[in-house]
């Protein structure tokens, strides 16, 4: 019968066997990347909004405090989205006939809520309390990023459990003085010292038990 295979078969067969191992490894690595990518996490994705509301303009430009609109952030699980009325407080006086603000006026006039498209969104089985994080000295910017630099709001953090846990395990890395919580531009001077001190001072616990968020 003689030879069945060509000489090259030897090399080919060995390469394929070896290559297979690396190929599988590569695929897994790619998947690992994808599930952490914005495609899954929506990190940095800007959403169409009925009104191109700019936090940059209102926060950085006009220096409006977060709590002016997000009223319940200190007291409730839910930070609160401003009712149209809040917008009208100012826009009844200024930009009263700006084309851009038509939807706002419309909403106020015929009592129809503005339908915003949600930017930060956790799954139903995750229960998050804004109030306690604010009170324990976690700054808005820590999770929401530099909102004051966002023309259109997007999700700054991946919001994966990995990401939540990283802070819950080591709050001293992220905690800031309470009076700095709403300060977008806060830069820690020496976190190495302040962190542990504040953790002690604010009685911050490292909560990693499941029922901290899931119930």
């Amino acid at each position, binding site marked *: *019968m003689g030879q*069945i*295979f060509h000489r090259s078969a*030897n090399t080919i*067969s060995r390469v394929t066997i070896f290559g297979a191992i690396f190929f599988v490894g590569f695929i*897994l690595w790619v998947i*690992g990347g994808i*599930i*952490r990518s914005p495609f899954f996490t929506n990190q940095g994705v800007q959403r169409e909004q009925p009104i191109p509301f700019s936090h940059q303009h209102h926060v950085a430009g006009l220096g409006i405090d977060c709590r002016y609109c997000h009223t319940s952030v200190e007291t409730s699980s839910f930070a609160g989205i401003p009712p149209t009325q809040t917008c009208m407080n100012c826009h009844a006086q200024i930009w009263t006939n700006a084309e851009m603000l038509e939807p706002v006026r419309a909403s106020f006039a015929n009592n129809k809520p503005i339908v915003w498209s949600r930017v930060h969104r956790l799954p139903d089985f995750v229960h998050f309390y804004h109030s306690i994080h604010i009170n324990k000295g976690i700054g808005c910017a820590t999770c929401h990023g530099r909102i004051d630099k966002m023309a259109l709001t997007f999700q700054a953090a*991946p919001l*994966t*459990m*990995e990401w939540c*846990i*990283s802070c819950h395990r080591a709050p001293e890395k992220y905690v800031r003085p309470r009076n700095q919580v709403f300060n977008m531009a806060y830069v820690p001077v020496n976190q190495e010292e302040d962190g542990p001190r504040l953790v002690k001072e604010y009685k911050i616990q490292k909560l990693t038990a499941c029922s901290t968020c899931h119930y």
Partner: protein
Amino acid sequence: MAGIDEQQPVHEVRPTTQADKIPTRFIPQPTLEPGHTFASITDHISSIVLRRTMPIGWIIGFGISCVLLTVLGAAITKLLFVGVGIWGINHPVGWGFDILNFVWWIGIGHAGTLISAILLLLRQEWRTSINRFAEAMTLFAVASAGLYPALHTGRPWYDYWLFPYPNTMGLWPQFRSPLMWDVFAVSTYATVSLLFWYVGLVPDLATLRDRSRNRIGRFIYGMGSLGWRGSAQHWHRYEHAYLLLAGLSTPLVLSVHTIVSFDFAVAQVPGWHSTFFPPYFVAGAVYAGFAMVLTLAIPARKMFKLEDFITMKHLENMGKVMLATGLIVFYAYITEAFYAYYSGNPFERYMMWNRIFGPYWVMYWMLILCNGLAPQLMWIKRCRSSAGWLFFTAMFVNVGMWLERFVIIPESLHRDFLPSSWGMYHGTRWDWAMYIGSIGLFFFLLFLFLRFLPMISIFEMRTMLPEAKPHAEEGAH
């Protein structure tokens, strides 16, 4: 020499029992009927694979198993879309047919590894003609078994959470759980068995490569044989590796069923929480395994005229193993009952009472009949050395081992600690569909194996011939 007729073996097969007058028991039974040569062995076994047509028995069998396979498909589809609720499980009884069949299949698998590994280490020559076959059976049994743990979960599409991999949740499996031990034990077992089996196949694939008369066959067998050419050094390392594998598989096969038994022994359900489960389960596994080997080997050797290679001696030896393990298992039943009584623990006592006289008493007594009494036939030489009787007994044992798992798993769960939460359990039609389907899968794979791979290790059979053992020259070693 070259032209081998592909239709049937050149060398025809002689009937097994040559002497008609003398009672068979006075004839020493050989493990290979006399008169064979390297060529005859090679040609006979390889021709089974290389010929074009298969015996009618094969075609029918394969057809049936295909049908059963579709049943499995239906059952799984329904399961994935609707949920495990289609099964009979309920609140006291969280595990029913699913885990029951898993344990049953895994148990069956054990004989293969045992025959190929342990008997090899024990230098049991007679294993040679059945080990390939038994190993294949192991693989397919493990495949069927694997279905259940994978599909018994409420959300099978998250099964991959049972594997340790870095994920966005920063979570890992919980390695204290016997189920995790299962994951590792079963996957290791499957992998190692596969390797063992394949390594055994390599030289035979080479044989087929050289016998095959069509290009595709040559190519495929050629690839499979990795270019094996029987060089002396290769043989040397080969035997070395084979021995090492046998040495590794032996503790492995014991550990696998030990760990399966931990699923129960580690829990605290009365009837599960017992220290002697590991030996009890391992013995049971071997028992079930040999029964299944017999169940398959007896028809197979008829179908493919292998009486020369799988002789009465093999069957009889398997019968003996079955008897031995059967006695161990029976002893375990008695011990179980005694423990329950002697512990003085009300839960244990009630559990035993409930098994024997409770609503499922039939199951228990059937179990005693199938696993305790039936194998006693093996004491009798006539039964032991008759294919018919052996097959009959083996069937009993197959059923018995299934009953044993039923008695252990749902029956212990259905009445545990608080009488208020007691319940009843019955398998639904979908439970049965899954079960029958998994049998279908098993036979489907088995028939493919019989068709495309030598069911008897050719090169090992060659070594059985006296000519295979030349006396070494001086200075050889």
